[in-house]
């Protein structure tokens, strides 16, 4: 594409330079926090800034001591366990219910689609403090406060909208005639779902599940309101760490979480492309 040709009439080199510099600055702003936290987590000193030794690339100034600290501590592994248990269970519920709902919403015959969609997506836009406050009272009355189950239900409700959105988006590019053709050939609805729809929407399902999982893994407000000591998750521990005793161990945990985020992002991107290619291949004429 003639990229430069389109802009040359308006902007001179100076303008273009400023525009690029501005964009680079914004990008730096976006990723700077990640760029800073990773090297600082290897600081041999308990400071949150680069020591002279680190800048000189002195080997002694760098160390893995904070990572060893996390492993040696009982609390972080326990928090990780809680995060995973709650995250996996909440994701399972959100994904199962979210996929079903998305299938219903994608059906052109779905009655009242807009209000139902608005309802199903509402946990995503409702301020978390309000959701968590409501859940605190309601779940307390049901005896679900300070239980894993309570947090699982809360996180499932917060994660389900993401599954609905991603799966609905995948289904939007999906030819309804395929399902109808399968049905006309005598396939029962579960068979149609399993053999025709599921393979096509799988990338959307997995992306949605990863979104729901990431949501649960990062969620701290409902944990603050609903969780007790036995439900301390990674973000909950980070929260008290940041508020009270910010130790370099937090930077080490943060670095691990950044790596995990990159892994999730990579998976979702890969799925997106793979899904896109697959859909393209299927609907290529001829």
């Amino acid at each position, binding site marked *: 594409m003639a990229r430069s040709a389109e802009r040359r009439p308006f902007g001179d080199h100076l303008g273009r330079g400023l525009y690029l510099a501005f964009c680079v600055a914004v990008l730096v702003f976006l990723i700077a926090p990640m760029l800073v936290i990773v090297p600082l987590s290897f600081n041999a000193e308990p400071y949150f800034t680069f020591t002279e030794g680190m800048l000189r690339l002195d080997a002694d100034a760098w160390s893995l001591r904070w990572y060893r600290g996390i492993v040696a501590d009982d609390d972080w592994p326990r928090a990780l*366990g809680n995060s995973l248990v709650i995250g996996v269970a909440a994701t399972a519920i959100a994904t199962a219910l979210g996929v079903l709902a998305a299938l219903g919403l994608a059906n052109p015959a779905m009655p009242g689609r807009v209000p139902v969609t608005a309802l199903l997506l509402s946990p995503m836009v409702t301020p978390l403090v309000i959701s968590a406050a409501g859940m605190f009272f309601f779940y307390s009355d049901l005896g679900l406060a300070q239980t894993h189950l309570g947090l699982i239900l809360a996180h499932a409700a917060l994660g389900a909208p993401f599954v609905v959105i991603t799966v609905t988006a995948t289904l939007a590019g999906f030819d309804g005639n395929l399902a109808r053709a399968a049905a006309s050939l005598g396939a029962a609805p*579960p068979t149609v779902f399993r053999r025709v729809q*599921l393979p096509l929407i799988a990338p959307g399902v997995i992306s949605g599940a990863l979104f729901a999982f990431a949501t649960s893994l990062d969620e701290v407000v409902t944990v603050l309101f609903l969780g007790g000591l036995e439900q301390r998750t990674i973000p909950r521990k980070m929260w008290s760490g940041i508020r009270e005793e910010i130790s370099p161990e937090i930077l080490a945990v943060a670095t691990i979480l950044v790596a995990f985020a990159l892994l999730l992002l990579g998976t979702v991107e890969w799925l997106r492309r793979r899904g896109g290619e697959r859909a393209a291949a299927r609907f290529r004429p001829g």
Partner: protein
Amino acid sequence: MTSPRTGRATPPRIAGYAAVAALLAAFSGSPSAHAESVTVVSYGGSYARACQKAYHEPFTAETGIEVRLADFNGDLAQIRAQVETGNVHWDVVDLNFPELVRACDEGLLEPIALDDLPPGPDGTPARDDYLEGVPLEGCSGGGMLYSTVYAYNRESFPGEKPTTIADFFDLEKFPGRRGMRRRPAANLEFALMADGVPADRVYAVLDTPEGMDRAFRKLDTIKDRIVWWEAGAQPPQMLADREVTMSTAWNGRIFNARVLENQPFTIVWDGQVLDGSSLAIVAGTPNLEAARRFLLFAARVESMAAVSRYIAYGPVRRSGASLVSTHAETGIDMRPHMPTSPRNMANAVFNDWEWWSDNGDEINERFNAWLAR
């Protein structure tokens, strides 16, 4: 579950798997019923570590009951919320005296009969062994005396050093930001003493509307330079990071940062506000028996004296005073570092916990409104 490769899962089956996974997760992670434990909520940091070594670990060794530690900042709010919603998940809490008196009155704590508390080593009954003024309202046992002081980082003041409580409020002579606890108690006392009120007149002055205004006006003079802390572990950290040049703090935290981490901190004892804290059991805990055993263990004089071997806090029982000896890790003589050491008591005020428990609510309200402005 929704394996895209096999594509075997049908919608009902997915839901089934999900439900099973959720239930498994819920049960696998629920509080373990097998190992008996007691949840103790305290102020975190070096104080919590000192208590762990002094009497949590010996308690577990003696009874087999595991102690789980959690942190809080001394507010009654969470206890009130737990008792009122019936979600009690804290068993034993470490409360400062004003909060202890109020919580006991409000019915937030389990009653403890005074005669159940263990006698002193020489057989003195507990009721005669506690220091005068320790509020034994029938809800508590255990505990220690501590002090709110201010400390500075010596590196921040290479020349003249602060020595009086007035210096804390003197931004011209000693520039830099100040750390203060985000609640009115002790701060108002400091403000009045810095403004020239003698220690023994502080509560008489605070009890008048003009005196209260005077304290807030004094705080106004440094308000813009105050960094507020909530957890006891924050002041030493803020001093070490030079986030502030001086900060109010609990004396034991500064002591431990000095001896264990070699931090260049100096405590200014002038105008110190002495207070105490004591253990109590949250009303309605499902863990009452273990909680009671723990509290009675902590109320032994030996347990209290052991605390003073790890942090510079004194026992609240008379028979404990003679047991204060040296720091367990460095061998330092602990007596001069105790808030009640005569040298440190030259200008000190005892927190009037009755006054605070009567007036705390109104003052807190005013303090929060003042903060928000």
